[in-house]
């Protein structure tokens, strides 16, 4: 890339100091403290003793905790996968519809964010409850005799997770599909591709960046989620998020909780690095660069 006035600039501009300060004080330092705690020893009364103890990390790999990690991974994967399957057609529809409809759907996707997250989950719990809207409706229609158990179990957790994370999948997919040139699909069809081939050979590879971004946006927070399993899952099973909260607040084992947190952050960072390194190779990024090159003079 040609050096521009901005890339050439050596001096850090003053306007980034407030945000830099924010990051240092509220992110880097707390994270440093968590990492430091994770390497220390827990005293008999829950206090922190300032001596090195690598046992915290070793404990994370005990079967009971590994099982929890595995269960959380499963939940996160289920959430990301289901959201992807549900969000893709919606995002495609949005990208292909007219300006008005596009904006309307976009608004509908975003509107839930206007309400507090916990309130939304409680509302959902009511809707899904024994005397909730859904059960009442099904009974009115004589589709069921006894109410369905939709909350305080895995079904409730699943519904809650999908409900909450769907927008995080829809938005990146929409961004990817919205800038896609749909005459490429016509071109593929013209060259003899079937509908399935059009989807697999053109649509999928070109929307891959959106799929990856959306999956990361859903997977990582879903992996550490503790409110939804707590509120929607009853007291049935433990997830990483719940485990960490309880370790800190109930068992008051800060070093062990810190060790688990550190590993979670590490996992998140590793997946981001993978995505970022992919992004430099992905076709959409290349396309954007191509567009910029096109704007320049054409040499014969």
């Amino acid at each position: 890339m040609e050096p521009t006035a901005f890339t050439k600039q050596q001096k850090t501009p003053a306007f980034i100091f407030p945000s830099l300060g924010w990051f240092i004080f509220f992110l880097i330092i707390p994270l440093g403290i968590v990492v430091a705690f994770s390497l220390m020893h827990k005293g008999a009364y829950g206090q922190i003793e300032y001596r090195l103890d690598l046992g915290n990390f070793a404990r994370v790999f005990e079967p009971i905790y590994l099982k929890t990690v595995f269960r959380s991974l499963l939940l996160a994967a289920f959430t990301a996968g289901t959201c992807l399957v549900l969000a893709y057609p919606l995002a495609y529809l949005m990208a292909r519809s007219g300006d008005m409809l596009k904006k309307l759907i976009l608004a509908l996707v975003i509107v839930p964010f206007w309400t507090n997250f916990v309130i939304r989950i409680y509302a959902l719990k009511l809707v899904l409850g024994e005397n909730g809207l859904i059960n009442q409706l099904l009974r009115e229609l004589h589709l069921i005799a006894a109410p369905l158990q939709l909350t305080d179990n895995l079904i409730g957790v699943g519904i809650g997770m999908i409900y909450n994370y769907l927008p995080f999948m829809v938005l990146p997919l929409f961004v990817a599909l919205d800038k896609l040139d749909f005459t490429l699909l016509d071109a593929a069809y013209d060259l003899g591709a079937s509908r399935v081939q059009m989807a697999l050979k053109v649509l999928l590879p070109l929307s891959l960046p959106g799929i990856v971004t959306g999956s990361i946006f859903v997977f990582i927070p879903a992996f550490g989620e503790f409110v939804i399993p707590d509120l929607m899952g009853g007291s049935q099973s433990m997830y990483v998020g719940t485990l960490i909260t309880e370790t800190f607040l109930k068992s008051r084992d800060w070093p062990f909780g810190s060790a688990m947190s550190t590993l979670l952050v590490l996992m998140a960072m590793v997946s981001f690095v993978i995505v970022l390194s992919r992004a430099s190779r992905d076709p959409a990024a290349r396309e954007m660069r191509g567009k910029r090159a096109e704007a320049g003079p054409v040499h014969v």
Partner: protein
Amino acid sequence: MIVETMTALALEFENVTKLFTADKKVVDKLSFSVREGEFFSILGPSGCGKTTCLRMISGLEKPSTGVIRMNGKVVNDVHPHKRNVHMVFQKYALFPHLNVFDNVAFGLRMKKRPEREIRDRVTRMLKMVSMEDYAKRSIQQLSGGEQQRVALVRSLVNEPAILLLDEPLGALDLKLREQMQQELATIQKQLGTTFIFVTHDQWEALTLSDRIAIMNRGKIEQIGTPAEVYEQPNTAFVSRFVGTTNLFKGKLIAASNGICSIQTEEAGLLHTRLEDGRLPPPEGVAVGLVVRPEKIRIRVTSPSHSPAAASAPANGGVLIEVGSGAAITAAPSVAVAPQPSINVLRGTLLERTYFGATTQVRLKINDQLPPLIALLANQAATKMPALKVGERYYAVWDAADSVLVQDA
């Protein structure tokens, strides 16, 4: 309308109409045919329905009413994949995630051809457009002209019976466009494929095509060879759209011996000679008279004062005579032609633009008419006195060099 010849018809449209919404006919009762191996252009302004025509030929759209035939067979309900027609899209529509080779190979891969055959055919095609060294390049690393070539062979590699080209050169700069026009013409001759070429660039259509259809608001106004549509436009629209033109509106008042006399409000009585065999429209009807800038000669003296000039050859040779000032001041502001075989108008020179081989002049006849445009071949300075802006001159052209058009 079109004379049926022995050559097979690659494509026929019969009263094809297309509506997207109930109230607007995007394509309106279109009938035309394209011969096998022909370079056929559809020329028309933006939004007149050109792309819609191509999409109906390829099968991406279905006609609302009417019949489309290929090789004599009705194809209205034939699946697009079974038509053996391919399209070069308006902005190439190359796949950004595939390299040059894979783009060109796309169609053959969809047809599940053996990989060996694909390699041979793709390589041969890339060679044809001198792109064989670019096979592994990504699309973004290509210039506009190179992308154009890839888009062309991506379609041609599938050996279509008809290739549809939707303004393929529209995105290129002028020099590159001229170069690609030549390549396109060469490739078309070499392969003998029927080309249906859509453009809104008149010169492109004139230089490349065997025949041109001029479209306006979903209808075809005229079909003919480039010379026909340029020299004998049927309508005022065609004359305006193909080439630069001077148009006079008026009423037909007399027609005899092939000479039509038209009474115009702004320029008095003008004359035109009908092509042989063409019947004059009924007298009193509103018509237009069209004269191309290069048919107009500029004179200093009125032809009526100089019989030698009036008999000058009408082959575009420009004669300009330096006359006496007295003769000029004596002439009326709008001259009436002394005989019906020539037309004479008088006006003030507004502007003179030097083009090298030619000079374009604009002559103001009066306030009602747009300036008359004349294109003069440049000759040695001794033969050609300098024209002065602000001076008054005569514009002269032969009746046979102007054309009568409908719906003025």
